[in-house]
Every structure is written in structure tokens, then in C-alpha cells.
């Protein structure tokens, strides 16, 4: 709880809560228009094949069917954030089971489904690339024969099935090995996992008579979707309006265009509004999940536990299209370095094509996978050297003023405090309190993504405040946090602020709900707008109050001076009559983070901006007979810079850990021969109330220089450390190390019985 502030730093209820508890909040999945049709996507049944025949004539003639489209009906373009490699519909080659081949719109969902069943596709199988090893083998079949012809971000290092190799090189690892007393080499694997948002991806599109299309969708990035639609629809972006009515979770899975283009294309063809919404099966076979990985990690260390060098390679199974892979592979190298001082580094991230669904971004992309390897190995090293794992970390962690792996100068580093407080809270150093029971620690660092944000802020004639932002309230209460910043700066209450958001026609640009940036960036834009409003309000009030502007302040919904005060409502009314209303445009762009360009190659994310630091600690028991893991206590100490709203930061931590525990213990999209075996929510096992323990949050505050009141991004970090923390605790409990995620009961039983480790 913050001293000296009225609004920020206080656990106030989120401003959109009443609509969400009464069912009145409208989400994209709820959205409907009169005369609306239902769209469905016809998808490939083959992992890799030539599409030799596609016949939609029977489907097109069926009762209730209003439109059928396939590759022949859309511009021959490829899209993608880093590599433009993905077509709207497969035309000659299909590259994963689930790839869109055609789409239909009909008057009912049932009619649309019946039409799908009437579409005929004939395939000629091609040799599929089913996993990373197959994709990287010499002479492997290429997922994209024509990869060289694709447009891509120029700095990417592409080669055949590798759609980027990102690199960090520091010092000389050979020298580091020579200086080391011990060198440790391990291999880790992690599985493909889904974000698990409870609202399916959904979009409704409608064209008007002037040739403009409006799309209501649950995207995290309305402006990015607008741009992608401009390419796909081959019209200028100002003809495309994207509105986010409400969004039922995203976690990165709703960043890129998902169903919006199908809705828009079917609506154009049919002349009717069209809604497209995914099923759970589509989500688990044809969405943007987190990449499975293979990680090779080699670390040199002196006898007294000082890191001398690290070489790491992390391979991302990014699926049939690059998706977020090239960027994720870049970010991964920063995570592989860890928040440690290591003089010699050679770190590589590879994004690799396979014949699986196109992977994307999932809360702290690459974080959990790379951190699992780094922090598991730190415990292995500690045990091998006979040094306590806490002590080994304390000897190597970064501190204020240290360099990050690419040369960025680190500031506001609260890592040691996080580590010590998490360890204390879990009862360290009593690491093995009883048979089958163990404790684990893991630490990490993460970024606060930049990008620009704009807001318009208007003082209404009743003295309330309208915050107009292009940002998306994804559920974190980030826009409540931004509104708290605005209320603090304007001298009003949080309850005085209403938010209008996420409409590409009427709201200012925002880089979107990604990278833990919304409260940070929109909050700063609000500060800028408040400063501008303050200038205008004070100037207008000065004459009336008979005091110079310097003598006036904004307080308690008034401009207050030595000789009296005047309300914001009065000033806004005056402005409406004489000055066009009391309004300001606030903008923010995070300053670039300086780094050493010579240390990186193929790297699209070379530094962590306003980095956060965190430590997780867990105390658990393992039943060796059944492999069941019972978590007794879970502690997170996270340096949030400044806690704008402690309750919702705790919410981020509790939810991020829960999601992380799913990835750690039970979740996996299981592929066999290019097909997903568990495309339903019974067999894809997400944690329930019975699986998630109580989580203790310790909010550490080392204020950063950029964020509002020193705040750092908080949404993604809690998802980074759970796999490593739990793996370390299981290893402490069992004396056996499991190096592949998820750590299922089956793997535990096999490991304790001397089988696979």
C-alpha cells in the first residue's frame, strides 16, 4: 500500500468488474448482427501433401449455404509477422493437419458444418517432417521448397527448415572452458502447449455499401489485424475497422490474425455479416501454441561456483509457418544467459519448420522453456560442487550497474532481494524436509516490451474523465492501472474515469496487449495527457482565480489556488462553450535500450527493456509409487518496480504460476505422425481448483526509470520460472532429475524406478 498517493499503489477494484460479474460485458464470442451467417473452415487432413483436387461445387449448392471460398477466391499473397510464408488457404501444398483449405458461410452453424462434410479434397502424400530431429537432419525434406522466395525481416538468418538462427556471442567460450574447473552439459526438452484461454477465437465481419468492412474480434492487436487484413483483402487499411468488444483471455494466442480474415472474406463473398468462431479441436490443432523445444546447454564453472562460460542452443519446433518463431528464438538467447554474470557466452536460438500447426507467442515466449534448462542446470551444478543452490545463485547474479548479455546496462535490479525473500519464505536452507519432500528455487528476468501508445483524454462537463485508448483490456486490469495513473495525475477518483478502447477508427494507436506493456505504456501516455490537460486547465483557471498558473494545482477535482478554486466540471463546461472541449492527446514510446550491436546476429529482440527480476520457491512432496506431486507452498518474489494495483499484480502472479504449473506437470499437445491425439479439454489437462496451491506473492519494488511511478511489466514474468522451480524441488525430493516437460506422473515413476531420466 502506497504512502503519499491517493489512487496508484492502492488495491482498488477494476473498473470493468460489474459488467463481468453480471454477464452484461459483451465479448467477441457473444457478438451478433441481424442476418448474420456462420462461417466454418475446411481444414487439411494431411500433415504434408499435394492438394490434387478440391471440389466445393456440391457444398456450394446445399440448402442454406451462402458462400464457399478457397485459394482461387483470394489474392495470392502470403502473410506473417517475421516471414511472409503463410497463405490464407493452401492451394497446391498442405503443410499441417488443420491448415485451412476452404471456408463456407451458411445460415446456420449446422448447415455450415454439413457443407464442410460435402467438400471433397484429394491429397497426394509427401514425406512429412514430424519433429526437430527430422527437420534438422542432413538432406531433410524441406517444409517450404521455396523458402528463399519469401519476404522476411532482412536480418533473419534463414536456411532451409531453419527460419531464423538468432545469436549472442560474448567473449570467448573456449577461454571460458579453459578457466573452468568443471564443465556441465545437459539436454532438455519441452512440449508444445496451448494458451488455454476460455473464450474461443471469434470474429464477426460486416461490409457496408461504401466498401468498408468492420470486424469485431477478440484480438490482442487490433491495429496489427487491421494491417494484416489490408494485405489479405487487398484494400487500404482505412477501409478496415477493427473493434474489440471484449476478450476472454489471450496470453499471446490472440496476437495474430486468426479467424478475422475468414469472416471478412466470407462476408464479402456472401454480402451478409459472417461470424467465425473456433472449436476446442481447432484450438488444439490449428492455433498459435507455444513451441516445443530441445535445449542443449553447456556451462563452465570454477570450483568455488563462479560461472566462466555458457554455450546454449535452443531449437523451437515452430510448425509449418514461421509465426512468432524467429522473434521467440531471439528472445530465448537472453533467457539462456539468465540473470547471471557470465563473461563468455555463445547462445543460439533456432526457429525450425515442421509439419505441425504454426506456433506463436504464449505469455513470456521462450521464457519457461529456456529458464527450465538454465535453472535446472544451476541446481545440478550446485549439487555437483557441493554448494547450496541459493548460495550458487547469489555468487553469480547480476546487480545494479552490471551488463546484460548484449551489453545493456542494468538498473533497478531487485534480484537479490527477490531471491533472498523467496528463499526465506519457503524456509530455505531446509531443502529436504522429509522423505519424498523437496524444495526448489528458480530465478529469472524478463522484459517490458516497448512500442508506442496514444490516448485522448477528455474532461466531461460533469467533471468526469473519458480515457480513449487503442489498447485492449485483455483481463489483467492493465487499463484500470493506467486509469489509476490518470486519476492520480488529474486529482480525480478512479470512479470518475470511463474507458473507451480498441477501435481502429476512433481510438489512437496502441502497439497492443503484448509483452507486459499495457499498464506501463498506456499509463505513461496518460501521464503525458494529464500534463497537457493540467496546462490547459490551469491556464483557463488562472484569470478567473486571479492567480498566476504557477500558484495553481489540480486537487480534489478542482483547480486550487491561494484565493479560491474552480471545479474541473466548470472548466470543462466553459471549454465546451468556447474552446471545443477540454481534451488532450498523450503519447508514449519507450526509449530504446542501448546494447552492443556487435554481440548479436539474426536477433530481433536484442535487449530487455525496463527488465524485471523474480524468484520462485516451491515446497512439494512426490509420491514415488504413483508419481503424484503435491505442492505444499509456492512463493513468488517479483520486482514489479512499483505496484500500481497490488491486488491485480497478485492476480497476475497467481494466474501465471497456475498456468506455469500446467505446463510443468500436465499439459502437452501430443502429436503422433503429424496428428494431434488429444484435441479436447479432457485429454489436454489444464489445472483446476484442485491442482493449484495457494500462492504467496511478495511484491518487491525497485522503481525503474521509465515506467509510471517506476512500474515494470508484470503480466508475463510469473509464467517463466514454474517449470524450473518445480523440477528442482522434484529433484530435491527424489534425488532424480527429470529434464523433459511436462513432468508427468508417468515420467516420475519411470525415473524413480531407474528408467528414463
Amino acid at each position: 500500500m502506497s504512502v503519499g498517493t491517493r489512487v496508484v499503489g492502492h488495491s482498488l477494484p477494476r473498473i470493468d468488474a460489474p459488467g463481468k460479474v453480471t454477464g452484461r460485458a459483451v465479448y467477441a464470442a457473444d457478438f451478433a448482427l441481424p442476418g448474420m451467417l456462420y462461417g466454418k473452415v475446411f481444414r487439411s487432413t494431411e500433415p504434408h501433401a499435394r492438394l490434387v483436387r478440391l471440389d466445393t461445387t456440391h457444398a456450394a449448392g446445399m440448402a442454406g449455404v451462402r458462400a464457399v471460398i478457397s485459394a482461387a477466391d483470394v489474392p495470392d499473397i502470403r502473410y506473417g509477422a517475421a516471414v511472409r510464408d503463410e497463405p490464407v488457404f493452401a492451394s497446391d501444398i498442405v503443410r499441417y493437419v488443420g491448415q485451412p483449405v476452404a471456408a463456407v458461410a451458411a445460415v446456420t452453424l449446422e448447415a455450415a458444418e454439413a457443407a464442410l462434410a460435402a467438400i471433397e479434397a484429394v491429397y497426394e502424400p509427401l514425406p512429412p517432417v514430424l519433429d526437430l530431429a527430422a527437420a534438422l537432419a542432413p538432406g531433410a525434406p524441406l517444409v517450404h521448397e521455396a523458402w528463399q522466395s519469401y519476404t522476411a525481416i532482412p536480418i533473419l538468418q534463414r536456411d532451409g527448415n531453419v527460419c531464423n538462427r538468432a545469436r549472442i556471442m560474448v567473449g570467448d567460450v573456449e577461454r571460458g572452458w579453459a578457466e573452468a574447473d568443471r564443465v556441465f552439459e545437459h539436454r532438455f526438452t519441452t512440449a508444445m502447449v496451448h494458451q488455454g484461454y476460455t473464450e474461443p477465437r471469434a470474429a464477426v465481419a460486416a461490409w457496408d455499401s461504401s466498401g468498408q468492412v468492420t470486424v469485431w474480434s477478440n484480438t490482442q492487436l487490433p491495429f496489427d489485424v487491421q494491417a494484416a487484413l489490408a494485405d489479405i483483402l487487398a484494400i487500404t487499411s482505412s477501409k478496415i475497422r477493427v473493434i474489440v468488444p471484449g476478450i476472454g483471455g489471450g496470453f499471446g494466442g490472440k496476437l495474430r490474425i486468426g479467424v478475422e480474415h475468414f469472416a471478412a472474406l466470407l462476408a464479402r463473398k456472401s454480402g451478409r455479416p459472417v461470424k467465425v468462431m473456433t472449436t476446442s479441436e481447432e484450438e488444439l490443432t490449428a492455433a498459435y501454441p507455444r513451441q516445443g523445444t530441445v535445449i542443449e546447454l553447456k556451462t563452465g564453472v570454477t570450483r568455488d561456483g563462479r560461472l566462466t562460460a555458457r554455450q546454449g542452443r535452443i531449437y523451437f519446433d515452430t510448425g509449418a509457418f514461421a509465426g512468432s518463431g524467429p522473434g521467440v528464438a531471439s528472445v530465448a538467447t537472453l533467457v539462456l544467459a539468465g540473470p547471471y554474470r557470465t563473461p563468455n557466452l555463445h547462445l543460439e536460438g533456432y526457429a525450425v519448420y515442421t509439419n505441425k500447426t504454426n506456433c506463436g507467442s504464449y505469455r513470456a515466449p521462450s521464457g519457461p522453456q529456456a529458464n527450465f534448462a538454465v535453472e535446472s542446470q544451476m541446481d545440478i551444478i550446485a549439487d555437483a560442487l557441493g554448494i547450496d543452490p541459493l548460495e550458487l545463485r547469489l555468487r553469480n547474479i547480476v546487480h545494479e550497474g552490471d551488463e546484460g548479455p548484449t551489453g545493456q546496462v542494468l538498473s533497478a535490479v531487485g534480484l537479490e532481494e527477490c531471491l533472498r525473500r523467496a528463499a526465506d519464505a519457503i524456509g530455505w536452507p531446509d531443502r529436504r524436509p522429509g522423505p519424498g519432500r523437496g524444495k526448489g528455487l528458480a530465478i529469472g528476468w524478463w522484459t517490458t516490451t516497448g512500442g508506442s501508445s496514444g490516448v485522448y483524454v477528455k474532461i466531461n462537463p460533469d467533471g468526469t474523465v473519458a480515457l480513449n485508448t487503442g489498447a485492449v483490456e485483455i483481463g489483467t486490469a492493465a487499463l484500470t492501472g493506467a486509469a489509476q495513473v490518470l486519476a492520480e495525475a488529474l486529482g480525480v477518483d478512479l470512479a470518475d474515469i470511463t474507458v473507451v478502447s480498441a477501435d481502429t477508427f476512433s481510438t489512437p494507436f496502441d502497439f497492443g496487449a503484448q509483452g507486459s506493456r499495457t499498464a506501463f505504456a498506456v499509463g505513461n501516455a496518460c501521464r503525458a495527457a494529464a500534463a497537457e490537460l493540467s496546462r490547459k486547465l490551469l491556464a483557463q483557471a488562472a484569470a478567473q482565480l486571479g492567480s498566476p498558473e504557477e500558484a495553481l494545482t489540480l486537487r480534489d477535482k478542482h483547480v486550487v489556488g491561494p484565493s479560491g478554486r474552480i471545479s474541473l466540471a466548470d472548466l470543462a463546461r466553459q471549454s465546451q462553450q468556447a474552446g471545443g472541449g477540454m481534451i488532450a492527446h498523450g503519447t508514449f514510446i519507450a526509449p530504446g535500450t542501448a546494447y552492443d550491436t556487435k554481440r548479436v546476429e539474426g536477433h530481433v529482440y536484442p535487449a530487455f527493456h525496463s527488465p524485471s527480476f523474480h524468484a520462485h520457491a516451491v515446497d512439494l512432496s512426490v509420491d514415488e509409487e504413483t508419481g503424484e506431486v503435491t505442492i505444499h507452498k509456492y512463493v513468488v518474489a517479483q520486482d514489479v518496480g512499483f505496484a500500481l494495483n497490488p491486488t491485480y499484480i497478485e492476480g497476475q502472479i497467481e494466474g501465471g504460476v497456475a498456468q506455469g504449473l500446467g505446463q510443468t506437470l500436465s499439459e502437452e499437445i501430443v502429436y503422433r505422425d503429424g496428428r494431434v491425439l488429444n484435441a479436447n479439454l479432457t485429454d489436454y489437462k489444464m489445472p483446476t481448483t484442485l491442482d493449484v496451491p495457494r500462492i504467496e506473492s511478495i511484491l518487491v519494488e525497485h522503481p525503474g526509470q521509465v515506467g509510471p511511478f517506476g512500474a515494470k511489466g508484470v503480466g508475463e514474468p510469473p509464467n517463466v520460472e514454474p517449470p524450473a522451480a518445480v523440477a528442482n524441488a522434484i529433484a530435491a525430493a527424489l534425488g532424480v532429475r527429470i529434464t523433459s516437460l511436462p513432468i508427468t506422473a508417468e515420467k516420475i515413476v519411470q525415473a524413480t524406478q531407474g528408467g528414463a531420466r
Partner: protein
Amino acid sequence: MAKLAITLEINRESHEALVEADRTLLDVLRSDLGLTGTKTNCLDAECGVCTVLVDGLAVNSCLYLAVAAQGRAITTIEGLAPAREGLAPAGAGLAADALHPLQQAFIDHGAVQCGYCIPGMILSAKAYLDEHPRPTEAQVREALAGNLCRCTGYQKIVDAVLAAADRMAAGTVAS
């Protein structure tokens, strides 16, 4: 498929609908009656976002046939707040005292993030608390095990339900 004329009692009001025999209660609530507070997701009774009360019992409306709901009292999230004269219409800001104690507790405890699971979560909790007014934390967790939430980690939801139970059992507000 032939359509059947059915009458459903939803939130203490009678609604008529013309539906095929295989239409689910979820679909009729959302598509025919515009009651989109009941959410849709897996359509296989795995996630719980579609939970409504039928004669006081929590059911997954995605697998409950609309025709089978005839003659039963259905409660959706829109009907949870106590019936009051002059209750604000949909879309208007509701006064805090128009909320059910569970709804208020979810707000007070920060139990709402994206909010998509919340209507189902609140109705599952309501059904349980009506039968077990003073539950333990373990019982609340058991009662909510069929409702997935991906945002909150459940902690603040469980806390909210326990707090609402206290308030309801204290009799300060009729449920």
C-alpha cells in the same frame, strides 16, 4: 428437423421459443433469447463456462437439451441479483446493492480478470453454497473443480466464495 414450441422459465420470467429437439439450452439462451451472460467454449461439458442453474442445480448448459428444461426453474447470471423493482436495465451501471453477495465478493476480492469463466464460476458457487452454507476451502475447491479459469489461479475466486458464504450465512443479505 421439426420444431417444438417450448416454454422456459428463466430468471423468474416465462420465455417461449420454437426449437428443434436437439438444440441445447446454451444455444437457445444465447442465440434465441440473447442471454449471452452464459458463455460458450468447449461444448463438451469440460470447461464449465456455460454453467447455469436448473432447479437450483449447476448444469453444463452446452449438453442440456432445451426441451428438457421445460417446467424447471432456470437461473442464469443475468438473473442472479435479487429481483427488485426498478432494477437498472442491461447495460446501465448497477448500484452495488443490486449485486448478489457472490458477485460483490468477486469484485471485492479481485477475483475477476478476463471474466469469461466468471458467470459459470459464480453459478457453480451459488448452487454449492445453497446446499452447504458454511463450506471449508477444500469443499469450495471441490465444488468449483468443473469450472476452468486460466487467468486467476483460482485463489482469489476461492477467497471470494468463502467471503460470500460468510456474508450470506450471516443473513445480512438474502440469497
